[in-house]
Structure formats: C-alpha cells, structure tokens
C-alpha cells in the first residue's frame, strides 16, 4: 500500500470577492522509499496541497492518507508519521542548534534522555556535531539547511515533506543536500515529497514527478517518461516537457538556480 495517497484532494478559499478554488482535485500516490517531485508554475496550488498534506490546512474536498492515517480523521497520526521542512526552515535565530533539536524531539514526545541522544545522533549523521552550541543565526546557508532537515527527521518519519529545499543555496550546498536526501531515502526507506521550481533539481533528484497546474494534476511519470511523452525524447530538457504540459515556465524568471 502507498505510504502517501491523495484522492480528489481540494481546497476552496472564501474571499471577499467570492470563492477561489486553489486546489481543485489532486490525485497522487507515493511508495515507501520513493522521492516524489511536485512541480507546477507559481500559483498552481503546490503550497496549498503541501499545507493540506501536513495538516496545516483542512481540505474542503477529497481525502488523503499518510502512513495509513486519514488527514481529517486522524491528523495526530499524520503528524507523528510525517516530517515537514518549510521553505523558511523554522528555527529561531537566537536559539542554539542543540536547544532547537532537543525541543523538536520533545515536541514529538521523546523523553529527555532520548531527545538528548537523538540530537547527538542526528548531529553526527548530518554533519552538525561541531555546531551544536552555536546560535542558529550564525550558521551558513548550507549548515542551516542541514539543521532544517535534521529538525524534520527527529522522529524518524515515514514521509518527509520538503518545500523548495534548495532555494537560496549555492551550487555546492545544493549538491550536498541532494546527496543527503538520497542517503536518507536509501538508509531509512523514507518517502520524500518535495516541491521545487528548479527543474534540474526535479530531474536529478526525483524518481517520479507530478506536475500540477491550476489546481489539478496535468502530468505524471518519471522524468524520462515525461520528456519522451511531451518533449519528443528522453534527451530533451525537462523544461521543454514542462512548457508543453503547462504552457508556462516553472517560475517567472527563475528557471535556473540562483548563484549559478
């Protein structure tokens, strides 16, 4: 059974100017140990979908399960089974790395001793050991991102949600992060659901892609299959396939990574 599955997942916002259908019905699944790339132009409904899957937003239609737990009926089960790394990270700049990791583990209801040992273990695993007693504000971009990832992994989640994980990173740090995500998947069988608007990232990292536009899934498949189907051959660029499917580029004026 799929670790992550959504069926007709929808969200309509009520605004002063009438209802806005941000997500109109998303169907998707992800298997254990799969890296699923979730792509779409700006305003396609990526963030809204992600916020629903992480229980931050209640769906107005459809259903979804994470690790067998229903989003609406068992949000607590969903929260226990998933880790979420937001684009903004989520650490306080004035708090030390150690305190943030320990607090996070305690928020996931680990005992005191367990939280301390898990912090050491994660720090060793993600190259943060020498940084534990520094304030998070003093970390470099790449170090910060590794900390954000560690925060999402504290409770060994079955599904890890990553929102634009490499935005603002230099090329070296991006490559490191990609390696890290692959390693997490291989070593722990974690399912990774990542949104990105860097098509090279989606191409390099994801086993399978789901492309959304105007709140619905418009294409789905492995990067190569999408290129063959929509851009003529597997040697074509994902950008061409993306353009063919959505009629738009991945993000206005932002199709190449920053700092390249």
């Amino acid at each position, binding site marked *: 059974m799929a670790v992550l599955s959504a069926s007709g997942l929808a969200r309509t916002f009520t605004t002063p100017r009438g209802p806005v259908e941000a997500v109109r019905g998303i169907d998707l699944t992800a298997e254990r140990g799969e890296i699923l790339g979730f792509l779409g132009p700006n305003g396609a409904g990526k963030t809204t979908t992600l916020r629903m899957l992480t229980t931050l937003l209640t769906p107005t239609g459809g259903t979804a399960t994470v690790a067998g737990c229903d989003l609406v009926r068992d949000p607590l089960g969903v929260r226990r089974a998933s880790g979420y790394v*937001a684009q903004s990270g989520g*650490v306080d700049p004035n708090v030390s790395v150690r305190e943030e990791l320990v607090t*996070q583990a305690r928020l996931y209801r680990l005992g005191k001793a367990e939280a301390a040992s898990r912090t050491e273990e994660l720090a060793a695993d993600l190259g943060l050991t020498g940084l534990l007693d520094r304030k998070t504000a003093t970390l470099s971009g790449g170090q910060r991102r590794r900390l954000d990832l560690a925060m999402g992994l504290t409770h060994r989640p079955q599904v890890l949600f990553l929102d634009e994980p490499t935005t603002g990173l230099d090329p070296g740090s991006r490559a490191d992060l990609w390696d890290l995500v692959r390693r997490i998947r291989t070593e722990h069988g974690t399912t990774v659901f990542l949104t990105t608007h860097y098509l090279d990232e989606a191409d390099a990292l994801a086993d399978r892609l789901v492309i959304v536009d105007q709140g619905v899934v418009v294409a789905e498949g492995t990067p190569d299959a999408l290129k063959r189907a929509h851009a003529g051959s597997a040697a074509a660029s994902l950008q061409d396939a993306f353009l063919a499917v959505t009629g738009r580029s991945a993000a206005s004026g932002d199709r190449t990574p920053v700092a390249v």
Partner: protein
Amino acid sequence: MSSFLSDTALIFGRYARQTLRSRLQMLFGVLMPLLYLLFFGPLLTDLPLSSTGSSWQVLVPGLLLQLGLFGASFCGFGIILEKQYGVVERMRVTPVSRLALLLGRVLRDAALFVFQAVLLVLAALVMGLRAPLPGILIGFAFVAVLTVALASLSYALALKVHTPQEFGPVINSLTMPSMLLSGLMLPMTLGPKWLDVLSHFMPLRYLVDAVRAAFVGSYASSAMLHGVLAALVLVTVSMTLCTRAFRRSAA
C-alpha cells in the same frame, strides 16, 4: 493529560529561556509604570481620592493593571516574528497540544509581568505605599489573570496579521481607550456621571476597582465580586478565541 502538561512545560521553558536571555526586556516593561509612580504619584498625595486609604492605595493598583494592559497587549509582536521564521508552523505540524502552544506562552507572560509587578510594588513601598499583604497578593493574582487574557487576545490577533506594522496601530488604538475608560490613573467616580456610566462597559474597570478594594483590605466587597467575575469571563473568552486561532489559521 500528562502529555498536555509536559507539552505546556516544554513551551513555557522555551519562552522563559528566551525572556531570561534578554535581561533588559525583563525590566523594560516596568519603566512606564515606574515613571508614573515617581512623577505622577507625588501629585496625588494630598488629594482626597477615596474615602478609605491613601492616594497610593488608589494609584498603585491602577499602575499594576496598566503594567499588565500595556505589557500583555503587545505580546503578539513576538509571535509575528516567529511566524516569519516559520517556528509557528514547525510546531503546528508536530503532535504537540494546540492549547499547550498557547498556554506555555501566556504562562511565561504571566510570570514576567507578575515579576515586574513585584518590582513596582517594592518601589511603591519606598515611595510611601502602605497596604495589607493579602491585598497586594490579590493584586498580583489579578495582574496574572489579566495578562493571560490579554496576551491570548494579542496572540490571536498576531496570528491573523502579517507584519508588525499592521499589528502595532491596532493594539495602540485598543489600549489607550482601555486605559482611559477603566480609571487606571484616577477613579472614575471622580468624573461626571456619563463618563462613569460609559466606563462600566469596559471590563478592565471592574478589575481595577477590585484591586483597589483589595489594597484597602475590603475583600468581601461587591467590587471584589464583580472584579473576579469580569476577570473569569475575560480569560475564558480570550483563551477560547486564541486556541481556535492556533488550531486553524496561522499562515
């Protein structure tokens, strides 16, 4: 239940450490009431403000609640910053109790403002305040309850706005009338009838009257009863609103 308590303790600890890290901030809130005490209090000493007790027994209760009013109303500022860092969302995707996310914060706020209230009363004792100890302790309890109520409302509002620039003016336009209409500085009974009647629609007035009653030792008065009831209603309504805000939005 035990996880709710440990969640609350965890959140309280996090924010208490945050406060302890900035010693200056701990003392800053007490500055404004202290200035009133030093430069406004002496003006009142020979005025017949009340049939029982000295002018200090009228002024200091007002200053205590002023401390709570202005301090707690601005608590939301902190959470706006945390929202921008993503800290609020990061906590909301964990299994932590939503009520604990609120309660841990407001208990820290209550502890901070009661601490400041103690400093203020110590300064007032030096200036000439004489009041029964149980009355002073009741005053601290009112500061704590007022802080919990107003800080909750402040957090609920802060979860809905996006920038500190939107938040500040709203709070200012609510706290100033609250201060004037509740008779924090001088008892409303001194004023014309219409002003006194108007001020009865301001819940904070009942708290001020109750603490003034406590400071002259009249614990079984109707002022005390009304104050306790007003405080309980205020704290129940505001905590309900804020827990709902934590459960729902927070973009």
